């Protein structure tokens, strides 16, 4: 457990030393949403109609930013070899690394989501649904990005391959996440969507670190 905590601590330390890195997803998220809202007709019902989808797609793209470098730096400097040989299972190391990645890249998006929801004239209930949906869905997206980064770590031009690989996996999260906001906007209960997002998160936590660890070992084949 000490080893896992050390990985978590190291990732946070590295991220906070490179301030542009943790601010990048947040700035990107803010810019995409602002530009979309400014580009549409003020007061247009389209804003409200497409708001949930735009907010979720922006969150996915923000999490994808720099995702191809999640394990690339460790491969290049040799740290990955030490992680492979460490007594702690590689899947645990990967899980904690991705948890740190979500904490600095995903959680800020969750926290500002009720504020940016105003740009799309979302109701109070819909803003709340967006917040809860992102709280449950963004860790899944971070884990999916992590898996994609691990699967492409040794490949050239991973930046192009990564979105192609992970987008199909991210679709269920986007459907239920954006669906929760739309349902809340109509005044209906959002429990079912949130349960699905929670189920996807549980599945992601159980499966994706193992899959990512296997992919990372494969980088040495």
């Amino acid at each position, binding site marked *: 457990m000490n080893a896992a905590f050390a990985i978590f601590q190291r990732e946070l330390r590295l991220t906070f030393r490179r301030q542009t890195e943790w601010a990048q997803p947040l700035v990107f998220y803010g810019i995409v949403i602002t530009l979309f809202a400014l580009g549409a007709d003020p007061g247009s019902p389209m804003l409200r109609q497409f708001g949930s989808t735009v907010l979720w797609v922006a969150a996915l793209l923000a999490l994808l930013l720099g995702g191809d470098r999640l394990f690339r730096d460790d491969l290049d400097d040799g*740290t990955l070899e*030490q992680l492979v040989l*460490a007594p702690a299972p590689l899947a645990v190391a990967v899980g904690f690394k991705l948890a740190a990645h979500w904490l600095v890249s995903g959680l800020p998006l969750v926290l500002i989501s009720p504020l940016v929801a105003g740009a799309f004239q979302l109701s109070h209930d819909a803003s709340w649904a967006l917040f809860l949906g992102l709280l449950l869905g963004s860790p899944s997206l971070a884990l999916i990005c992590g898996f994609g980064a691990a699967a492409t770590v040794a490949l050239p031009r991973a930046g192009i391959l990564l979105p192609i690989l992970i987008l199909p996996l991210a679709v269920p999260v986007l459907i239920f996440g954006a669906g929760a906001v739309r349902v809340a906007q109509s005044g209906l209960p959002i429990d079912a969507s949130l349960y699905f997002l929670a189920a996807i998160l549980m599945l992601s936590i159980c499966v994706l670190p193992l899959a990512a660890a296997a992919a990372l070992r494969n980088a*040495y084949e």
Partner: protein
Amino acid sequence: MSGPEPQILLYARDLSVARGDRVLIEQLSLKLVAGERLLLRGRNGAGKTSLLETLAGVRAPALGGVERLATLVWVGHRNALNPGLSAEENLGFWCKLNELPDTGVADALKRMGLVGRSRSRPSRLLSTGQKRRAAIARLIVSPARLWLVDEPLAGLDVEALPLVADLLAAHEDRGGAAILTTHQALPDRVAPHRVIDL
């Protein structure tokens, strides 16, 4: 009268190593005993690093198997130093990763000649030789009996040579063993007990 058999620390049987479709090593069997220093020697691309990675467990063998009968420490040709962290932080992290106390980190770096600011400034600001010294300091903080070191002298200056030679000698006196690789002739001070030419 012969003494007791030296303890086997690593045993590889019918080992084949491949990179992609290319088979680099075929059906190699070797054993490493306590107190032994084995050198894997060969030209560039002969498969020294791939074989050492396979012996360490970084890479899976194409065929055959490796039995590691002691804990090992791996110093690859990449130094495993994150450029954003200092040598001290990198080594401290490595200790925690391997569930070792990090109390000996400062002393180990000092022994390898990294003193003052070179210990605490980001690794990206260190010279190639200083990075290599920091990587080799892992051998000092680890109690592992099996050392696998890829190109131990690469990038090191002449002053570092006796440091490495003394480390190896002391390790072997304590009952440890080491496998090294090189593509060049090694100085006498670090001469191996056995050589495998690839």
